[in-house]
């Protein structure tokens, strides 16, 4: 059953109409954050707390701190013998909602492996960083843990990463 709740709009009183009080309220919130954060820093410095206060990072001079589970640039993985793990099954290409993965398949020299990627391009200009490709891969060949978020380029063409670049065999070079 869907229940319906009627929410009344806040009444427009004189106090809200003149804005001045609301601006003051907002400033007070900022001020409260300042003092709370300040007291956290002081307590941490005095050894009374284990958690430090929040710090603004000077990005890009200081590298960005990324969460452990952050989805960053794709990386293609290799087998123990150094060959790419990818078998060109097209599962990632199929699941990709942005259609940014372009794989061309060929015969693998190893009969037991059967198939491998001839080329594997990801257009990061189209990628939406959903991580479905990582979920879809049956052989754990693609990860999104290169911890690289500085992906801007001077042209759309430069946003396309080729297989050696994704494998880490070749440095991505910008063509200006």
């Amino acid at each position, binding site marked *: 059953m869907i229940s319906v709740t009627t929410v009344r709009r806040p009444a427009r009183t004189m106090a809200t109409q003149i804005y001045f009080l609301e601006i003051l309220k907002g400033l007070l919130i900022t001020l409260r954050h300042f003092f709370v954060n300040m007291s956290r820093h002081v307590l941490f410095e005095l050894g009374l707390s284990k958690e430090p206060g929040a710090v603004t990072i000077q990005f890009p001079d200081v590298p960005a701190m990324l969460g452990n589970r952050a989805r960053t640039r794709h990386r293609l993985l290799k087998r123990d013998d150094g060959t790419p793990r990818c*078998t*060109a*099954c*097209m*599962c990632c*290409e*199929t699941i990709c909602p942005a*259609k940014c993965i*372009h794989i*061309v*398949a*060929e*015969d693998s020299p190893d*009969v*037991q*492996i*059967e*198939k491998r990627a001839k080329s594997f391009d990801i257009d990061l200009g189209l990628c939406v960083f959903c991580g479905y490709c990582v979920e879809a891969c*049956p*052989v754990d060949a693609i990860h999104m843990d290169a911890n690289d978020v500085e992906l801007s380029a001077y042209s759309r063409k430069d946003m396309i990463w080729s297989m050696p670049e994704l494998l880490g065999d070749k440095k991505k070079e910008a063509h200006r």
Partner: protein
Amino acid sequence: MSESKTVKFKLNGREVEAPEGRLLIDAAKDAGVEIPHYCYHPALGNPGNCRLCVVEVQGAPKPLVSCRTFVKEGMVVASDSPAAMRAQQSSLELHLVNHPLDCPVCDQSGECGLQDYYMEIGRYESQVREDKLHKGKRIEAGPHVMLDQERCILCTRCTRFVDEVTKTHELGIFGRGHGQYIDLVPGKTLDNPYSGNVVDICPVGALTEKDFRYKVRVWYLDETDSVCPGCSRGCSTSVHTNTERPWHNDGRRVARIKPRHNPEVNGWWICDDGRFGYDSLDHDRLGRVMRLKDQRRELSWTEAFEEIASALASRSAGKGAGGLVVIASGMLSNEDWAAFKVLFVDTLGVKHFVFGPEPDQLGEEDELLRKREKVPNLKGGQAQGFGTEIPSASWDSLAKDIEAGKVWGLYVVERDLTKVWGQRTADLLSKLGLVIFQGPNKTATGDLAHYRLPATAYVEEEGHFTNFGGTVQAYKKALEPLGSAKPDWAIFHGLAEHLAGDRREEAVA
């Protein structure tokens, strides 16, 4: 023979009627119930070795295989009862004992019988803990077919095909027990003219197409009903195209051609020439309307129609319509033939046509499907009078007429004259004041013409072919035309309109 009786029986609790003597699996299919099966194929018989089509029949001591059981009056059959489902699941599980389950790298994936039936009736937890048995992989069975013995479930459809349909006996089963495998008979390769069909009938990925290998995943393909233009049989086909992901299949739009079941024309099969003869649909295509001689330039269709119409009109007014010869072939659809007649017979009054398949459009013939005339629609031309009232002139007399200066113009539709005249072609064509070539592909004749008009290939237009037996079949549009190509009938129609327009202007003046 007495009249065939119908019997009534119960299927999954439903009262169903079927003709007496019909196989239970067929009767169920008629009633809309598909019983899972691998070894049974309507054209290849029912050895009953896959044991997947088992159903529960009331009164029978154990489940029966529906492909070897005939319907009987008052029979009570259940294909979806718990006992029947359990029997089918067990059969499927046994089929998968040694199957490598390499679906991600298997070309059959997406149209595989094992995948389909596992999702439909399987969904069991596998009890197999033993290691899989390894057999031969990546074996080139023939020029068109790859064999993977590990994936095979030994349904024997392919061996029955080469034994019963082509009678060439290239494949056999070797070994014993679970070590059994399909292989080529020593000293033979699977190179009969119908070898591609074993790929279609293989319910798993054991036999796959070499041409299609790793080109496109099957779920990227669009299917369009079509008719093979390879010979006058006109087999029903399905054209599989990939347009959304052009980086696959080397940029070709047509990925493969499969037969479409049509009991009146081709049954279940097509020949390899038809199956793999789709390269011309994406290679060496004409896409621009060109004037090649007297200042090479790309034209718009309106410009081309105006120039050609005025050239045809002035020359036939001055030198007579008898000097224009039109070369066509059975490549034209019924619609094209109708517009062809309107333009050349009704509007221009042309008397000399060459459209017979000799000598360049003839090929091998056999009793199964292939016909000698390698064009699909000579009958459609006959319906318009070409070949009945209007005879096809011989190439030799045409060459003599050109040399004698009796001919001033040639209109060539989808035909390469160098295949008939060889080295002489350029010499003969240089004697003519007007040569127009119209067709979908680049040819030596097209390069020698004054005007070269791009026509659509059959997959880019709709139309009908009438096959040698008079069966009219529709083919549908699978792809957009390349460049500014137009269907043949539209080109004939455009020219006829411009010619009629010229005459109206003359009348006014």
